[in-house]
């Protein structure tokens, strides 16, 4: 009898645990959430860009908008203008432009519809803004793969996935990842995370040396270039 009682208690405890897991899972699946396969990307001498996977779950009825926005930096926008037969550069300075911008949506939303959401338009001016200036910036960023506009892969109604490439010319710094959940064209939930891009390895050390100790940078370069030049001359010189 004692053994049977122990077995009953054991089975009950397993059942409660199972119920608790189900409840937790339901709570998770009911609230939209997202993650990235990596939150830290290091730019080193082998860096050729990095594929990042964005995944998560959402309510079946709601739509999701993701915005990846790199740190604001000053920039120069060059426009090629044809003068006579030649293409001449016209350059102007821009302040506080995001160094990377990506927008991913569930298939329900077109980019033009996103533009109608005033909260997003004000917070992220690059979104589908028809002004000439922003169009030019978007085009310039797109040509360097620094601006991405794509749809999320909707797996089964509430799971979504997106693979995208962080290009090799990305500037180091924080990329803020915003998730907006919408129902009936109203934002019902906002959350954000950070994707950190940092320089590491020899690339980082060289850049730091160049910026902080220019004299040592040149000195090392001169010494190494002289040695290499002498060495190759010695190896390959004619007898």
């Amino acid at each position, binding site marked *: 009898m004692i053994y049977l009682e122990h077995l009953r208690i054991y089975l009950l405890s397993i059942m409660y645990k199972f119920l608790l897991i189900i409840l937790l899972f339901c709570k998770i699946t009911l609230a939209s959430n997202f993650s990235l396969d990596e939150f830290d990307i290091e730019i080193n001498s082998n860096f050729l860009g990095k594929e990042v996977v964005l995944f998560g779950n959402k309510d079946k009825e709601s739509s999701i908008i993701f915005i990846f926005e790199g740190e604001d930096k*000053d920039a120069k926008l*060059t*426009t090629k203008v044809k003068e006579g037969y030649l*293409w001449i550069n016209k350059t102007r300075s821009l302040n506080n432009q995001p160094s990377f911008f990506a927008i991913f949506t569930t298939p329900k939303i077109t980019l033009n519809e996103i533009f109608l959401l005033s909260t997003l338009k004000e917070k992220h001016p690059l979104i589908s803004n028809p002004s000439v200036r922003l169009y030019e910036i978007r085009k310039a960023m797109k040509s360097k793969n620094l601006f991405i506009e794509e749809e999320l892969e909707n797996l089964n109604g509430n799971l979504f996935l997106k693979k995208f490439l962080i290009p090799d010319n990305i500037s180091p710094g924080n990329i803020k990842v915003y998730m907006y959940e919408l129902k009936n064209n109203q934002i019902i939930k906002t959350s954000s995370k950070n994707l950190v891009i940092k320089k590491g390895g020899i690339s980082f050390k060289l850049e730091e040396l160049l*910026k902080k100790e220019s004299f040592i940078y040149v000195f090392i370069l001169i010494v190494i270039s002289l040695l290499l030049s002498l060495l190759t*001359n010695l*190896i390959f010189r*004619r007898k």
Partner: protein
Amino acid sequence: MNFYLPIAEISINIYILISLGIGIGFISGLFGIGGGFISSPLLILVGIPPAVAVGTTTVQVFASTSTGVVSHFQRKNIDYQMGVTMVIGGLFGTFFGVLILNNLKNIGLIDNYLNSIYIVLLIITATFILYETAKVNIVHKDKKFKLHQHSWIHGLPLKFKYRKSKLYISVLAPLFIGFLIGVLTGLTGIGGGFILIPCMIYLLGMKTISVIGTSLFNITIVAFVSLFLQIYINQNIDFVLALVLIVSSSVGAAVASRIVDLLDQENLKVTFGMLLLIISSFLAYDLFRTPENLFIINYV
């Protein structure tokens, strides 16, 4: 196989870069030039940012000329008086050139101007080489030329006796030539030997034996100073790119030096002239063709 260039902030195929370096070295070795005025435009053509191409070429020029200076120093083929005069002009020139480069970079016109300068330089050099070859071989085949001819340059004031070259000429002429070459070094990264040597022979009337050593002396010191200026003012020297170029171009130059004696010198000159015209036509095409991207953004 691509790899990342930390200062140029792009990734580039290592095989393209090594081939480019070997090619530049091969051409340099074959035609007896520094190779700066070929490497800079070729680097731009393969996608290296113009400012980085200029700065990095300066390192290559310094490395390739410095070993030459040592051998000419040992053979006592350097006219130090002439060299120092030109270096003084060259230092002012390179400072001026680096400042112009910085200004062009800031106003976003660097590729327009650099392309135009390279096109002009390459066409002038190609024309000069082809004309001289034709003059010697076709028009005046049996005529002997006098290298040292008196011109208006010899009438300039502030004359000075250059003992090694046995010349009594104005310091203004080598100063000005040094200044011009210095501007080119600072602005385009090239050593300028292909302009300097004809100027020293035909304008100043220097003896051929000390011309090469003296020009290398001038180019090495000006390039050395230019390296520091480029780093301080433009921060445009890519360490990794420079080292790959130095090693690969040295290999190319060594291969060329082994086969150069087997080739006909006059044919080589014509080939060189044609090669310069081909490079300049690629650069000219770049100025006239509709660009792939009408808008370019560069973060500061």
